[in-house]
């Protein structure tokens, strides 16, 4: 698996992402600077990591979405190449038109940094095949503007076409406004584009990939990508935690 991690001024999760990719795939990703106009030849996966691109002063992701490298990312996506956009990356992907909708300020207008629970809605996509449908995973979030909003027609299409891959849920997998901490529409946490090759999510799976991090629930996402792309490395074990709507010890 040949991956590329984009780097913008103000991004601060690119090293975490690179470490996670290298750990799971066995291959170091290329770090691609925002002024580059081309991706490395043979790139399978482009990752737009989290952080505060250009300080997020104007609007989260608005300036990064207009960086030269984003034209190359749009071209990569148009050819069917995979794009993973996390946190600020998700905001950039929405602002650049790679994904529909926008990320608004959290419902309580506060920056939130904590672990949250996500339910995997389907496991037949490149981004979720490392999990089981219905599985609940624990992943950290750190954002002030992660409240996913789109017009009613877009939401209807996202839901109808099965493009919502993760939702914020309670530890036992139930939809509950209390656990939808940022107020996202339909508790949407991660979505794909129409073609299914661009995926954006607010939480940080790259920060839960090693036992030393206290949890490895994020590893399944990268393992799934490696499996999908036929990576030489064996697929990492699926999450050993049994957070599930069917109980802590069951698998969906």
């Amino acid at each position, binding site marked *: 698996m040949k991956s590329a991690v984009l780097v913008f001024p*103000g991004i601060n999760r690119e090293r975490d992402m690179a470490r996670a990719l290298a750990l799971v795939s066995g291959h170091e990703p290329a770090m691609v600077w*925002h*002024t580059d106009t081309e991706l490395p030849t043979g790139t399978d996966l482009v990752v737009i990591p989290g952080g505060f691109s*250009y*300080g997020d*002063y104007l*609007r989260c992701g608005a300036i990064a979405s207009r960086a030269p490298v984003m034209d190359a990312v749009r071209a990569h996506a148009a050819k069917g190449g995979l794009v993973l956009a996390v946190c600020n990356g998700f905001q950039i992907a929405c602002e650049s038109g790679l994904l529909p909708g926008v990320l608004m300020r959290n419902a309580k207008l506060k920056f939130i940094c904590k672990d949250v629970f996500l339910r995997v809605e389907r496991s037949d996509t490149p981004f979720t095949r490392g999990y089981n449908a219905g599985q609940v995973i624990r992943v950290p979030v750190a954002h002030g503007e992660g409240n996913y909003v789109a017009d009613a027609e877009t939401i209807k299409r996202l839901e109808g076409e099965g493009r919502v891959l993760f939702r914020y849920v309670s530890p036992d997998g139930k939809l509950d406004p209390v656990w939808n901490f940022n107020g996202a529409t339909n508790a949407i946490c991660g979505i794909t584009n129409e073609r299914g090759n661009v995926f954006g999510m607010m939480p940080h799976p790259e920060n839960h990939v090693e036992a030393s991090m206290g949890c490895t629930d994020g590893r399944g996402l990268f393992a799934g990508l490696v499996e999908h792309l036929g990576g030489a490395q064996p697929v990492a074990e699926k999450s050993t935690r049994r957070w599930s709507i069917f109980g802590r010890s069951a698998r969906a």
Partner: protein
Amino acid sequence: MSMRLRSLPARVLIAVALLVSLVPNPTSAESGDACELASTHPAGVLLRCGLQLKSLVLAYEDVRRQRRHDPQGVFHFVCPIEEMCDGQPRISGWMIDHTKWRRSERGDAAIFELLRQPPIILRGAARPVDVASDPLKSICGVFDLELAGLSGQGVCYDFGESQSTTIVTVVSNDEIGFVLLFNQRNAELTAFRETVDALLPRFKLERASGDAYLLRWMMP
């Protein structure tokens, strides 16, 4: 023979030379060009002009709002009781390199370029070295304005899907410069511009005077 200067006249000569070097140069103290940045605050600076200290801080006169700043070097005029600012824009800003700005064309592209740069007080921050190839376009052109006695320009950006509009103003004089952002959701542009126009006279550039004030300003 020892190289040390033992004679009294020689010692006196050296002492006089040292004293002369310590006397302030009146021209440099009075000249604006001679001012150096002594310390910064997200909304202001402390300048050392010869032996004088000069403090400039941007303030907003409205009891409903308080100035706060974040670790990214951005200040915000926030409403601690948000309901008191219903229908009012979010206001934030940061200090810019005013000399660079004043050398620029001060148009649409120059304003967008400023928005790509971190606040000047973040000296170690990564700064883009390229020039934006695809700047955002203002939906209201570029207009002139005055704020806190500083002159400047403004533009309007519309972020359609989020139903959010931002008016960006850039103001400066020979000593200091700021970007100020006014952001509001679901705002009709003409009405929003009128709202912002009404807010501009509330900004003041506080000029500190007196050692005690400066000392307090310099305290962490």
